[in-house]
């Protein structure tokens, strides 16, 4: 009788079960006790992590329930956030999160994809490796350091060099750029987010571009395509779903980013038409108000914001995973 995978999960050290374990967790060394302990450990992690995930969702859901019940759908459509008056409308935060993240994406994607194309298709190796390393280092900078840099460098710079001229020139015609130039604004938040997500998008893009099979590139070149044409007409279309996945992964990070954007976005729960005006995000309101939330309903409302944020980021990440997956499947054809 062959051991079933299930019988191998139990801590049964008989020889038969050990074979089962080994077939589940192939190891180069012969099965010994350490291997088996490790296998059991890994297995239990595999069970515990999804459980933990479910538990978190459940916990937040329960905590948010009073708010869900008292406000219903108005919670996500109302723009009034006034805890003192027990008015809780989350739309300004949803708006702030979505707009800052998509603006960040709009800035970051061309930069990151351009960088990745340069590094994989054009740059000589001696240049590509250090530049790639330096970009990836950007991802290692702590969020709060970005925030401080934002306050002291980026915001003053944006205010004087970008926002004021923009408000003075286009501001009258385009409400998007209407003054006054606050500095601490949706724009500053988006710019800092974009800098933070460039490393992720460019890393994924580089990976999928490298995964484009060599025979695809050679097919194009052999037909008389230039390097440039090969890159744009063959390599990038082939990698496109993956690049899209990278962008959505970046979006996921932007949606959840808290400290840095909280420090530069201005934290005003308004839906302003101008991106030069302050805004507020879901993550920021949680970070700012959680510790001082008085009253059960206030706390519950914040929990509902958390639940919404959680839902949005999970959705975005699932989409990203599916897209990246599709490319790697096709690459392995």
């Amino acid at each position, binding site marked *: 009788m062959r051991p079933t995978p299930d019988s191998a999960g139990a801590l049964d050290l008989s020889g038969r079960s050990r074979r089962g374990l080994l077939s589940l967790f192939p190891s180069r060394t012969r099965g010994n006790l350490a291997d088996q302990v490790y296998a059991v450990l890994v297995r239990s992690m595999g069970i515990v992590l999804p459980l933990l995930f479910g538990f978190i969702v459940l916990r937040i859901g329960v905590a948010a329930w009073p708010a869900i019940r008292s406000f219903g759908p108005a919670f996500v459509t109302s723009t009034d956030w006034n805890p003192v008056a027990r008015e809780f409308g989350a739309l300004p935060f949803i708006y702030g999160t979505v707009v800052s993240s998509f603006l960040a994406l709009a800035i970051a994607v061309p930069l990151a994809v351009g960088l990745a194309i340069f590094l994989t298709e054009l740059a000589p190796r001696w240049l590509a490796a250090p530049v790639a390393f330096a970009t990836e280092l950007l991802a290692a900078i702590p969020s709060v350091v970005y925030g401080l840099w934002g306050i002291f460098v980026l915001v003053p710079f944006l205010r004087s060099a970008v926002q004021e001229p923009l408000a003075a020139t286009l501001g009258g015609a385009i409400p998007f750029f209407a003054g006054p130039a606050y500095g601490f604004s949706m724009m500053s938040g988006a710019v800092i987010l974009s800098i933070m997500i460039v490393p992720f998008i460019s890393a994924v893009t580089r990976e999928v571009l490298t995964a484009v*099979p060599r025979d695809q590139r*050679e*097919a*194009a070149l052999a*037909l*008389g*395509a230039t390097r440039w044409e090969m890159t744009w007409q063959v390599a990038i*279309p*082939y990698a496109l779903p993956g690049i899209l996945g990278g962008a959505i992964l970046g979006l996921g990070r932007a949606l959840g980013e808290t400290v840095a954007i909280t420090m530069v976005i201005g934290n005003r729960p308004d839906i302003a038409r101008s991106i030069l005006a302050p805004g507020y995000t879901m993550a920021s309101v949680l970070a700012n108000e959680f510790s001082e939330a008085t009253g059960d309903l206030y706390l519950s409302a914040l929990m509902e914001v958390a639940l919404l944020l959680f839902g949005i980021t999970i959705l975005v990440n699932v989409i990203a995973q599916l897209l990246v997956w599709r490319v790697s499947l096709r690459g392995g054809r």
Partner: protein
Amino acid sequence: MMEESLLPMETKWNPGVPGIPAPTVGASHALPEGGKQVAAGAPFAVEARSFSFWYGANQALADISLTITTRQVTALIGPSGCGKSTFLRSINRMNDLIPNTRHEGELLLEGGSVYRPDQDVVLLRRRVGMVFQKSNPFPKSIFENVAYGPRVNRLVQGRRQLEGLVERSLRQAALWDEVKDRLEKSALGLSGGQQQRLCIARALAVSPHILLMDEPASALDPIATQKIEELIYELKDQYTIVIVTHNMQQAARVSDVTAFFYLGKLVEVGRTEEIFTNPKNDQTEAYITGRFG
């Protein structure tokens, strides 16, 4: 020297009117010997003169001197790793993609030096079609696969002309009847043999002068292989074909000339029936009779 004198002809090379599938070889060629001009249909499509090639420190080709005659099928045979692919990929400079390679000696394509410093690699590759061991259609429609070359080389004006060229190329590759009702379907839905014939059609669509095939049938079943061989037979009236194959019977069936490579060297070259019935070299004989190693 005389290669330089060819430059104007090289750069002005015109892939021809798309309406004419048969490529017309340039007006005149300088023949290496004596450098005199000869009429169209110069006998040598490719000529290697003491050509050597290195991957880093590893020498893949040593002192190859070989002429490949126009409108004939030349088969390159030899054990794995003997440099057949390297030689083939030198002709259209596909090896440029691999870092740390170098070469010595001369390699001429229709009389012009392939590795000349001012050689326009893109123009060179337009004259040389290539079919790879593993069929590599783009993940696009059948039509778009064939249309890629004409589009990228701006060979046609307008959709009608493009459609005509695509149809003609597919017919030449003996694939038209099988795909004419599904041109907009993905090329990846075709069978392995069909995909390989699609790749041949794709290569033919830019009217190359020379078709390089690197073990084009090695991944195919016998019936698909037979179709490819019949196709090669059809195409040799119009194209110079160089085919790498591991299959002795295939070499014997499709080729006019056979060249036997061993350990990076050209051991023997001659008329195919000569090589297979009366090889001069012991190694050649050992290889073709399967008594090798």
